[in-house]
């Protein structure tokens, strides 16, 4: 499925869309409501001291205090700090809101054709919102599917552009793994009966809207823990600052309350406090831009922690289809003969494997593709019983199929073989031939291929080697994952030999061959028992238990309702390779949080050096030696610190929304780099910033 328009197309320009900015400006003020503010302890405390100092300012104004201009500026910047924090959150939310808006447009009021009986075609037209879970509706070409449901009968092509942004229609049919339909999508051809599975208001699109809007946003466990830490640090700085008046009283001096408030607000971790929720929202948003819906923020965090990735071989590691790569005749048969028979058998075979045989025979031996009707051939399709397909051509029949099936058919078709033990000495397949065939098959399997035996008129000709084509660049991706510390496990129904060869070629760390859904579940459980976090993707109903068990279960949008319910993420593009990006987005979210927390705390060093000499210099002039930045006056020092503290929030909004870039270089180098940038940078940048602001405000005479 082409997803380029959603990946590359997620326009970076919209990071700061002017429409979003304008509505965020308004929201910055409405979010000052203390009932909203209390969700963020650090900023709530800032608001409390801002209100307090504002009240004191008006009192001073009334009785005519001194230094009012300075106090006014400090108070102004306190409010700016709050507004900037709110603005950051509003911008992050705004981007989601814009997406929700476009989703809402698709959720137009639909009419549903509610069937009165399960089988008949009589229906009443009712509004889509009145449908209950379990109702069965008829959806015909041109109709909008009224609500989420499961196809119980019929097959139809459906345009799911409303949710995926992908205009190419997809097939939805009853039974199998492509039975889920989403409300708001449109049936283009044919008709289906759909059993409704979602109650009104809780459909997939409703949930999507709620998610991207952030309305149902719950704080994630790590976010809660970080909030506790920030609140704790705030308490520590309350102690540190609240004791100062008493210390200075001992020394025989007094410090104006606005200066103390400025010291306090600059010391507490306002930078991360202001940006924390924006980081979380932006993380979810990045996933949405990637056409992945996380059902909870917890799932996104878990993605960053994933230790083991379970990947289905087909479609993820290899191209969906196997291709013929060689003809391997048994002795006494020429390659040409085998190729000819194989091509004939595949002429009417529309499967990709069949086509690849026709193409290979043509390319390698110049055997032109022939017309079935000219040959008077009849196609014998593949059935689960025979596990063979082929053509009947005149008198002889050509068959291709699994090695054991062909062998079985040759023995069975042979009247001699059916006769009894005495005549078994002359089978149509000699023991040597069978042994040779087995040897070739094993060799192919060992190389990661699948052998396909071919017979003509009861005579064994040889084997077509089908090979899984490992996706280009996938090996590098796995190497990258290994550097991230993530183990990849390939899941396949192939036999262990084939699986091992493909695993080696693709560079996965481990594989699970001949895997049943139970095996998958078992593997997840055993990994989790070792304390590992497991991510997987799946689409079928039989994947549902494993999806539910995995810490990160990505359900394909094309999958069944059961799978979609079981997973904690849904990939709208149904691209299993995306697991890798999902992990990266999770890591990026956590890294951004950590980096900005570190930055915020490291900032305190410079702020101390700006404000401590400024507030104590009046009492002990010697302490002005601590003014290592050489800030102009005590007032300008305090003002510069608080201005820096406010502006840094604005400056970091783009980083919070975009996220710190993740590099798959292993934890050590990654940590070194981030520590250098956000740790040491966090110590150094405020020294420079505060000095620059001080120069500016002294130049224009603010303090």
């Amino acid at each position, binding site marked *: 499925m082409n997803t380029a328009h959603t990946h590359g197309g997620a326009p970076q320009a919209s990071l700061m869309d002017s429409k979003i900015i304008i509505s965020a400006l308004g929201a910055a003020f409405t979010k000052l409501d203390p009932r909203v503010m209390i969700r963020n302890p650090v900023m709530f405390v800032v608001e409390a001291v801002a209100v307090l100092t504002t009240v004191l300012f008006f009192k001073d104004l009334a009785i005519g205090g001194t230094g009012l201009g300075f106090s006014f500026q400090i108070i102004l910047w306190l409010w700016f700090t709050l507004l900037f924090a709110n603005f950051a959150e509003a911008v992050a939310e705004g981007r989601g809101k814009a997406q929700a808006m476009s989703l809402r447009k698709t959720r137009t009021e639909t009419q549903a054709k509610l069937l009165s009986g399960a089988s008949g075609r009589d229906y009443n037209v009712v509004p889509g919102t009145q449908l209950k879970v379990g109702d069965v509706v008829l959806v015909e070409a041109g109709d909008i599917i009224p609500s989420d449901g499961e196809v119980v009968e019929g097959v139809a092509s459906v345009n799911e552009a409303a949710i995926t942004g992908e205009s190419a229609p997809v097939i939805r049919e009853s039974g199998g793994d492509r039975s889920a339909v989403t409300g708001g999508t449109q049936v283009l051809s044919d008709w289906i009966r759909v059993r409704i599975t979602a109650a009104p208001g809780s459909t997939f699109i409703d949930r999507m809207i709620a998610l991207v809007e952030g309305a149902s946003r719950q704080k994630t466990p790590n976010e809660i823990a970080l909030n506790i830490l920030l609140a704790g640090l705030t308490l520590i700085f309350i102690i540190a600052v609240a004791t100062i008046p008493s210390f200075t009283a001992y020394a025989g001096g007094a410090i104006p309350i606005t200066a103390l408030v400025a010291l306090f607000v600059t010391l507490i971790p306002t930078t991360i406090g202001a940006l924390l929720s924006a980081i979380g929202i932006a993380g979810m948003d990045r996933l949405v831009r990637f056409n992945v819906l996380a059902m909870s923020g917890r799932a996104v965090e878990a993605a960053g922690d994933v230790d083991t990735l379970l990947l289905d071989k087909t479609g993820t590691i290899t191209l969906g289809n196997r291709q013929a790569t060689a003809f391997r005749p048994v002795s006494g048969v020429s390659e040409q003969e085998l190729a000819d028979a194989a091509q004939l058998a595949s002429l009417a075979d529309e499967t990709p494997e069949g086509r690849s045989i026709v193409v290979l025979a043509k390319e390698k031996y110049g055997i032109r593709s022939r017309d079935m009707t000219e040959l008077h051939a009849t196609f014998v399709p593949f059935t689960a019983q025979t596990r063979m397909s082929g053509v009947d051509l005149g008198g002889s029949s050509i068959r291709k199929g699994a090695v054991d099936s062909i062998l079985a058919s040759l023995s069975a078709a042979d009247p001699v073989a059916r006769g009894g033990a005495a005549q078994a000495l002359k089978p149509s397949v000699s023991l040597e031939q069978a042994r040779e065939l087995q040897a070739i098959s094993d060799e192919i399997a060992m190389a990661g291929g699948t052998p396909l035996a071919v017979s003509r008129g009861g005579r064994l000709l040889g084997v077509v080697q089908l090979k899984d084509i490992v996706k280009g660049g996938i090996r590098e991706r796995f190497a990258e994952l290994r550097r991230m*510390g993530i183990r990849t496990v390939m899941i396949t129904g192939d036999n262990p030999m084939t699986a091992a060869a493909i695993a080696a070629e693709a560079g996965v760390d481990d594989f699970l061959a001949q895997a049943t859904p139970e095996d998958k579940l078992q593997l997840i459980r055993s990994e989790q028992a070792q304390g590992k976090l497991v991510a997987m993707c799946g689409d079928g109903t039989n994947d549902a238990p494993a999806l539910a068990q995995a810490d990160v279960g990505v359900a394909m949008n094309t999958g069944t309702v059961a799978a979609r319910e079981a997973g904690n993420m849904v990939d709208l593009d149904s691209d299993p390779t995306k697991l890798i990006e999902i992990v990266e987005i999770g890591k990026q979210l956590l890294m951004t949080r*950590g980096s900005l927390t570190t930055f915020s705390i490291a900032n305190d060093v410079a702020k101390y050096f700006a404000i401590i000499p400024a507030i104590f210099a009046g*009492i002990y002039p*010697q302490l002005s030696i601590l003014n290592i930045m050489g800030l102009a006056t005590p007032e300008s020092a305090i003002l510069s610190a608080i201005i820096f503290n406010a502006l840094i929030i604005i400056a970091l909004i783009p980083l919070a929304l975009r996220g710190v870039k993740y590099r798959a270089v292993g934890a050590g180098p990654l940590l070194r780099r981030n520590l250098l940038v956000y740790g040491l940078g966090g110590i150094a940048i405020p020294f420079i910033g505060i000095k620059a602001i001080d120069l500016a405000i002294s130049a224009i005479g603010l303090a």
Partner: protein
Amino acid sequence: MTINGWIQILIFCAIVVALVKPLGWYMMRVFNGEPTFLSPILHPVETILYRLSGTSEREEQHWLTYTFAMLAFNLLGFVVLYALQRFQAVLPYNPMGMSAVAPDLAFNTAVSFMTNTNWQNYGGESTMSYLVQMAGLTVQNFVSAATGIAIAVALIRGFSRTSARSVGNFWADMTRATLYVLLPLCVVLTLLYVSRGVPQTLSAYIDARTLEGARQTIAVGPVASQLAIKLLGTNGGGFFNANSAHPFENPDAFSNLLQMVSIFAIGAALTNVFGRMVGDQRQGWAILGAMGLIFFVGVLVAYWAEAAGNPLVHALGVDGGNMEGKEVRFGTAMSALFAVVTTAASCGAVNAMHSSFMPLGGMIPLINMELGEIVIGGVGAGLYGMLLFVVLTMFVAGLMVGRTPEYLGKKIEAKDVKMAILAILCLPLAMLGFTALAVVMPTGLASIGNPGPHGFSEVLYAYVSGAANNGSAFGSLSGNTLWYNLTIGVAMLMGRFLVIAPALAIAGSMAAKKTVPTSAGTFPTHGGLFIGLLVGVILIVGGLTFFPALALGPIVEHLSMIAGQTFSAGG
């Protein structure tokens, strides 16, 4: 600073580092209940003790049970010690006829010894009977140290166990710490001190006639035995008021070295016990490395300040380092080193008067204690205090590798952060909070010995020392008043139990967690990067809180000194 001074400092460091592995190995075996060379003698004693107290070494405790056992034991210790002091006049072994200790002083002293602080608002030789010294103070010296070790071991188990409900058995840990670690080492150390001339007697003080013919009473007593545990258990409560500056309590350079090494030995080796128990000794070395880094910088500044001396004194034509309040037999290097060692660990024994240190020299002990004495620290207390900072550090920075924070495979979650921050929070609360009250209250101000910033430092030092459970004093403050006895007592309780309880809660929480296997994506916690980060977080989170107070105390005093400004009484 001299080469000689640095050589002595390096010799000290080398001995401590050399002891880490053997002592760590021994203690690991002891606390895992594995046999050691002392088991044949001590195990029967151990078994009898368990049987008498109705427990078994195989009985495991949930962290809450462990905490209650610890609290109950400490409460009992407090009550006994308080009673002994109040009734010492009527109890035996009181040859000098000491009278009952006043209630507030008895409270302060009982809390002080129970919490391993050994803050002394009294002069030992003029206040306490031999019975109180031996059965009260020395017993607490052992068990308070053993309590600290037990808590540390419980926390280590929290990190080393997987999906476990229990963190060990407090009674077994206590007993083992005392029987297998403290007692044998003390026996050896006591004999070594006696060999250097430290008295060990139960007879009364000696009346002597000086050369001039004056009569002098020379205080003696069971000094060597108390000295051994005072240092080994990082208690610090001196037999004599002058503590390890007294010639009978610290006769020569060798005893001085031995004392410093014993202060650090167990605390440093516990990092190795940690490393061994979590299955990677490098983890222990990394923690010791972070401690060592802070320690080394502290020694550098303190020694530099003391060796440089006072410019105001130099102006009077007296050259050399600052020798005020120092013993000539130790000099500036060993006095500065001792001061840093005793405050890095929560010992509080002193061989020089910290109050007489240069302002910056005296600031180092203050900073060491303000950080919560996590540099080696009190036996056990240093390690669990440091691990609390590690939890915080890993939470802040662990995210930077793109995983939710974890340490040694244990995820750090909301309740762990809550507990760590609670423990770290209580220190500035007690230290700065009480100082802020004392420096504006007449009753607090009345005890201050020197005017100006130095007087401020005296008060700050008292509460910092109390809350950090150090017990060393900044000299000139008269602490034996109702106000200081009570408030420092409360500060000691806060600094001890408001750290221990959260630490044990974290132990319980960690033990219950699964251990996530390490991978290439895991934050490596055994390298220089981790050490640097840990030190950074300690200094910024733990240290910067005190910057305003330090600025108004030692820093301004130092700057004034350079400027030639002095502060006169009443000025």
